[in-house]
């Protein structure tokens, strides 16, 4: 019996369930091909808190709080909660911001890229190609001795900050004081019931904490060490989502006219290459950083704050794309981001003995 529940089968089951839930979330109210998107949802939270004023993408998405709190509960119950930090926090903050800037040029994180493809949006292929190329460049840096330095153990209370902050945002989402923004139209106005979003977030949070699933790490390990463990979650997620999308009649193949998407191939590719590189330098995708922030990793917490800040910058500075195409400053922002990431990769190396 125990032979059946190897880590490999568990991560495949978790990936499948995640994919199925992500597709159903659209049926339950979330935007099309956006059942779950870590970048989009953090961006909506950034808007809900009033950090940017893009009126159509403001909502305190309970999935995010659920994911972090699910990971927190899971880490505590499996005795894996460890407060730690101090590995180049400001670099991580900025890498997080550029991950978000890259994601918002494509309009999705590596989770939504797979989800978009599973809904028939072929721009997902360009995006995933970008993630893979970005991760490939990151691997070259890793092989040359790049790292962001060691973290050290810190006060348990410090590790609790992100979970408590997430609980606070959840309370804001429940009680909706008047200073919180909520979209009346557009993607931000489309959402499942709060309790559904929260329960799905909590469940996926526990599964992601246990299996360590990572939507950039999967591609990275495939290339770097020919290890398919993390990749099997991505593949299972795709299969789960495409089956549900087919069953619900959501499958619509093509590049154009896709929901919350545009088809500028060059900048979809480069935006996600920026994301793939930044995530590889960070050691994980937005989902993975969110999960780690619930496990006491305060560097991952700083990264999540960087993602939220990045969303504010992206909308305030017109670097985000929209369904009509890329933004006025998307090109500049992606180039600046790539220069930053390449500088980090070249300059932050130590010689491996």
């Amino acid at each position: 019996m125990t032979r059946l529940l190897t880590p490999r089968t568990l991560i495949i089951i978790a990936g499948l369930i995640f994919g199925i839930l992500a597709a159903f979330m659209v049926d339950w109210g979330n935007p099309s091909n956006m059942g779950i998107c870590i970048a989009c949802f953090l961006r909506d939270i950034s808007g809900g808190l009033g950090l940017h004023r893009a009126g159509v993408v403001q909502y305190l998405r309970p999935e995010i709080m659920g994911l972090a709190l699910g990971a927190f509960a899971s880490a505590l119950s499996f005795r894996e909660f460890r407060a730690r930090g101090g590995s180049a926090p400001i670099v991580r903050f900025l890498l997080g911001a550029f991950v978000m800037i890259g994601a918002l040029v494509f309009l999705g994180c590596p989770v939504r890229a797979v989800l978009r493809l599973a809904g028939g949006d072929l721009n997902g292929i360009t995006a995933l190609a970008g993630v893979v190329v970005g991760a490939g460049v990151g691997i070259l840096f890793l092989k040359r001795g790049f790292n962001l330095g060691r973290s050290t153990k810190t006060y348990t209370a410090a590790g609790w900050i992100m979970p408590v902050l997430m609980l606070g945002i959840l309370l804001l989402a429940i009680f909706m004081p008047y200073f919180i923004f909520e979209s009346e139209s557009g993607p931000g106005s489309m959402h499942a019931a709060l309790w559904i979003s929260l329960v799905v977030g909590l469940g996926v949070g526990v599964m992601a904490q246990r299996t360590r699933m990572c939507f950039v790490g999967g591609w990275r390990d495939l290339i770097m060490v020919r290890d398919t463990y993390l990749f099997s979650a991505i593949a299972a997620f795709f299969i789960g989502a495409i089956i549900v999308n087919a069953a619900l009649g959501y499958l619509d193949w093509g590049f154009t006219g896709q929901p919350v998407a545009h088809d500028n191939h060059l900048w979809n590719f480069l935006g996600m290459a920026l994301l793939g590189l930044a995530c590889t330098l960070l050691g994980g995708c937005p989902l993975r950083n969110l999960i780690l922030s619930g496990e006491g990793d305060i560097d991952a917490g700083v990264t999540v704050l960087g993602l939220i800040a990045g969303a504010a910058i992206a909308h305030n500075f017109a670097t985000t794309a929209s369904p009509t195409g890329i933004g006025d400053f998307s090109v500049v922002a992606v180039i600046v981001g790539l220069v930053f990431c390449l500088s980090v990769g070249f300059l932050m190396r130590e010689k491996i003995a």
Partner: protein
Amino acid sequence: MIEVDVRGFSCPIPVVRTKKAIEDNPGTPVTVLVETAVSKENVSRLAQSRGYSVDVEEVEDGFRIILSPSSK
């Protein structure tokens, strides 16, 4: 005995360092010190895929992983 101390490094540095150590020292036992359960799993998986047997000892502040090349 080769020792790789990757305590405090986050994913994927422990794997990168372990990979380099076993590639630079074929046929030699390697000891890896890691801090988190995640790193322990990742390093163990890499070593097993490269034909090493893996022994894990729980130590203060993490794990000591002893990788021994198979006798073949």
